[in-house]
């Protein structure tokens, strides 16, 4: 047995293809991205070492500051929306519906998640539209007599960000709902039954038994929400292309513009690395807070 499990040739055969693909096209490029942040120009042609200039530039670049703030807003609004609505939906699915309806309800809830981001974004562009014809939202407002509220939702800076966030929340709720729901299904039924036999109301059971037990799932969903909202690209790219002005330019869109429209590889990489850092910092803060509270 031991000899078979130490078979070096077999280990190489098993490990090499995957390891090569991962190292060459994920790990190595990521390291290169970090290295690029100290250079400016075009790689292989004229790529000059500039030290920390790219990082210094972050602090004076108004567009960067703006897209950083947009990303934070995105994180806050969509992240909170996903978690609260996803959790709420999961609770309704688990405790509000009869068992025979849950499968249908679950299918509906998850449906927007499987629609390609590009198609969903194009659909929401039509929903928010004002000219040449009213989109779904504006026609609805007109139909219920609120014509004063009709406006170009994605055409004005005041509402564009909210519009993109709502579309993004709509597309994502199902994903978090399904994860929360799976967590709820894992809670032992006899715990809930014992509590309700003792006279606890449904809400009390949820508050005092379900919520504490769901804590790990909740933390995991928060981490997922942070990672996903920092990575977001399709929705603002198609819906508003970062506009109007820079109102919906997230870090990912700004990075793309800097790197592939202005051809500043070094500075573009710096923006990308900031996104990476934000992901690492925020998720580790959440995990640390979780650990701290657990021990208290």
């Amino acid at each position, binding site marked *: *047995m*031991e000899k078979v*499990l*130490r*078979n070096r040739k*077999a*280990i190489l055969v*098993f*490990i090499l293809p995957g*390891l090569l*693909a*991962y*190292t060459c*096209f*994920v*790990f190595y*490029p990521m390291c290169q991205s970090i290295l*690029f942040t100290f250079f400016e120009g075009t790689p*292989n042609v004229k790529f000059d070492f500039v030290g920390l200039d790219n990082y210094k530039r972050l602090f004076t670049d108004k567009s960067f500051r703006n897209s950083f703030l947009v990303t934070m807003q995105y994180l806050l609004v969509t992240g909170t929306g996903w978690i609260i609505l996803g959790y709420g939906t999961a609770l*309704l699915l688990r405790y*509000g519906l009869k068992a025979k309806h849950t*499968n249908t309800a*679950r299918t*509906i*809830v*998850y*449906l*927007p998640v*499987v*629609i*390609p*981001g*590009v*198609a969903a974004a*194009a*659909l*929401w562009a*039509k*929903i928010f539209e004002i000219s040449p*014809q009213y989109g*779904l939202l504006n*026609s*609805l407002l007109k*139909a219920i007599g609120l014509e004063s509220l009709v406006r170009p939702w994605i055409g004005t800076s005041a509402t564009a960000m909210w519009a993109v966030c709502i579309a993004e929340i*709509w597309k994502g709720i*199902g994903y978090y709902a*399904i*994860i929360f729901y799976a967590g709820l299904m894992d809670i032992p039924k006899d715990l809930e039954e014992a509590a309700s036999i003792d006279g606890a109301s449904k809400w009390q059971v949820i508050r005092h038994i379900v919520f504490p037990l769901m804590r790990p*799932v909740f933390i995991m969903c928060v981490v*997922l929400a942070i990672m996903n909202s920092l*990575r977001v*690209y*399709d929705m603002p790219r198609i819906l508003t292309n970062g506009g109007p002005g820079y109102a919906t330019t997230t870090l*990912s869109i700004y990075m*793309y513009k800097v*790197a592939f429209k202005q051809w500043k590889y070094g500075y573009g990489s710096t923006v*990308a690395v900031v*996104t*990476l850092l934000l992901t690492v910092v925020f*998720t580790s803060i959440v995990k640390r807070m979780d650990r701290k509270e657990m021990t208290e």
Partner: protein
Amino acid sequence: MEKKRHFTPGKIVMWIILAVFAVIQIFPLIWLVNHSLANNNEMFTSGILVMPETIRWDNYVTAFVDGHFLLYLRNSLLVNILAVVLVLLFSVMMAFACTRMHWKLSGVVMGLILMGMMIPIHATLLPNYIIYDKLRLTDTLWALLIPYVAFSLPQGLFLTSGFMRSIPKEIEEAAVIDGCGIYRVIGVIIFPMLKTSLVTVAIMTFLNNWNEFMMAMTYLSSPTWKTLPFSVLEFTGIYASNYAVQFAVMALTAAPMVIVYLCLSKYITEGVAMGAVKG
């Protein structure tokens, strides 16, 4: 537990919330399909939903033909099926080598690859573009297949190694004692035992990559290997004034995944939940 048939105020409120929620989730899609079957002029005159005089299937014909639908669908299917197969194969082999076999660097390799779950695509987009450009891989099938496989591996390895730990070692040991070689152990014993868990990995990989657009847009420029999301993007440009056709192309692009989802919804929702809980 006793069954109650009373409609308490709480229950009514809950049903209203549920109904509103269901409408919000589903109505945009109904609206989309409705408009995709209308005449372009009808849309400008009527209210929220259109009652088309004749159902305009020709919108779909236009979308189908001018949207390069078949070509892009073929590309999407080809890239994604190949990616799923390769991810499954590589993940099982690596998981076996890392969790079962004895070699010094197994922990290091595993840690290195699992770290990949944190790496966002943005952080590799630029260098990868340069690498593919240098290898003359841009605008080929490889420009999508390679990153789709490489980026799905960390999660694939994570999930499969988790599942593999639950398989008792004695089974393989018995097989080896009976003279079964290492490759046959994996192919004949491990693979079949992991079957249900591998469905999860396959679903996660497929869902993540099917809708991927950022890399596709960066690494591809000619239509030869473009994937489905491109039909929507190209169409909104060409048919800017013909709304009905734009709706048709959106519906058409979403259709394959929606159909697959409706057929496999139980597996997909469970697979995603399992993948996330383990991840």
